[in-house]
């Protein structure tokens, strides 16, 4: 290596180093927002993140007790049983717990099958639409219309056509969850700067290769947003379906209907808690997968 070369390399190293400092300075606000001041022990950081939700939880619980014991007359207390009653009846009475857990299992199965079909179908249709503009222009208006029809209006019709069992509940899941997947994937496949397309055109990259190497990876963040929204919706869809259909194994929706009819407050609340816990769990699952797949590079 010549002296001049060495000099140049040293200079470029200094350059790169000083630029990386710029970069740190630039990134600092972002880091602050995510994981605060470096040097603070981990438990204080954890505390600062969890303290807010905890306070809100305590306030909500307080409001619940207030309504149960202060607002409601003892004869009407079944409308909003105290938290410990709900927990005791729904989760500590063996027979009741089994009933709820079976419902949870049935709901989870149908919702997951529905979601899986929604993802496969939604992503496929979005890819086809993004590759063939004619299809996009022709199909998209109807997909929007499908989305605007109240799901409650469609549910009886679905029962009418394909029965009231598992399949029908899965279909309700798909109807309610497929649109956000399709719309977000389509947006992701098209929503990047046009210079990326030019970059690939310059090297005359074929359509298929471009889809795999550019469009699909670029679309991943939007796709995962769609999956997360759809995950919550699929649980709602399953429960709405079960609430109406009341056939086959009892899912959480059917249980909701039954406990309402029997004025069983604690079990009704228990069912609601399990249903929302399932929604949160599926949402969390997709957030986790999303962080694993795109967390390292997502901007």
């Amino acid at each position, binding site marked *: 290596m010549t002296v001049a070369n060495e000099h*140049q*390399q040293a*200079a*470029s*190293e200094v*350059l*790169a180093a000083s*630029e*990386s400092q*710029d*970069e740190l300075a*630039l*990134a600092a606000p972002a880091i602050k927002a995510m994981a605060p001041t470096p040097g603070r022990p981990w438990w204080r950081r954890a505390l600062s993140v969890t303290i807010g939700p905890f306070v809100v939880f305590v306030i909500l619980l307080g409001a619940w007790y207030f309504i149960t014991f202060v607002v409601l007359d003892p004869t009407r207390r079944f409308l909003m049983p105290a938290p410990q009653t709900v927990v005791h009846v729904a989760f500590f009475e063996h027979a009741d717990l089994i009933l709820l857990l079976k419902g949870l299992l049935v709901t989870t199965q149908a919702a997951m099958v529905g979601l899986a079909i929604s993802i496969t179908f939604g992503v496929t249709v979005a890819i086809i639409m993004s590759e063939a503009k004619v299809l996009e222009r022709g199909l998209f208006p109807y997909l929007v219309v499908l989305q605007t029809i109240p799901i409650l209006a469609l549910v009886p019709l679905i029962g009418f056509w394909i029965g009231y069992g598992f399949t029908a509940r899965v279909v309700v899941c798909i109807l309610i969850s497929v649109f956000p997947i399709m719309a977000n994937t389509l947006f992701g496949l098209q929503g990047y*700067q046009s*210079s*990326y397309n*030019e*970059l690939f*055109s*310059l*090297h005359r*990259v074929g359509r298929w290769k471009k889809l795999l190497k*550019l469009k699909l*990876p*670029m679309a*991943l963040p939007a796709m995962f947003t769609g999956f997360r929204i759809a995950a919550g919706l699929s649980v709602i869809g399953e429960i709405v379906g079960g609430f109406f259909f009341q056939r086959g194994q009892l899912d959480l929706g059917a249980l909701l209907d039954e406990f309402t009819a029997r004025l069983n407050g604690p079990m009704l609340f228990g069912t609601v808690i399990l249903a929302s816990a399932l929604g949160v769990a599926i949402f969390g699952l997709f957030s986790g997968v999303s962080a694993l797949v*795109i967390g*390292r*590079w*997502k*901007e």
Partner: protein
Amino acid sequence: MSSWSQSKTKPTELAIDDSVRVVFDDVSHTFPDGTEVLRHINLTIKKGEFVSIIGPSGCGKSTVLRLASGLLTPSAGRVHCEREGIGFVFQEPTLLPFRTVLGNTELFAEFEGLSKDERRRLALNALSRVGLEGFENKYPKTLSGGMKMRASLARSLVLHPTLFLLDEPFAAVDEITRQRLNDDLIGLFSRDRFATIFITHSVAEACFLADRVVVMSRRPASILGEVELPFTYPRHPDLRFQSDFIARSREVSAKLSESGA
């Protein structure tokens, strides 16, 4: 330096010999929406020549690059340009966010179907030329604007282009970074001597980098004039303060003000 003058040359007299890399032969271009962008452009870029194009915003400077690279076909006239061996640097770094710096730099070698080892060797070489050693495994989101641009330069240089097209590449970075990147580009050019078309808004940048500055008019753009900058490469940053350089920069500014920029 090029003694060729655009206004006197007729298409039939064009000498497209081995010394020429790009020829615009009476090229006019109109966009599909009817906007006329370029009018009767005659321009020759020789092998190893660095040409800056300067002109008012939105005058169609970028269209010149898109025509040269074959991304666009002119509505009238002809562009003679070998499509192999072109490096294109866009206004934005246009890095693939899901690939590391190394992965981005390997991209074009991958398109060409080169082996994994060969790709890596070429990419590492390109990264060392722009001073990005040690950043191979970083993702673009962790880089500063200047470093993203360096990665973008490395990506375009990976296959050793004979024609380098740069579309206002340093417009978005701060002034200090911009000067550094200019010095680095001079270094790269001095070594590899690729023919270059560099689009910019900045008179200082245009003159410091180029053998020849081409000044364009408002849209529909035609060539208002050219100024030669016969200074040797590599150019020292102090060149900016030499009287001859300043005089020629003034000439470019004067021509540019004719354009109404």
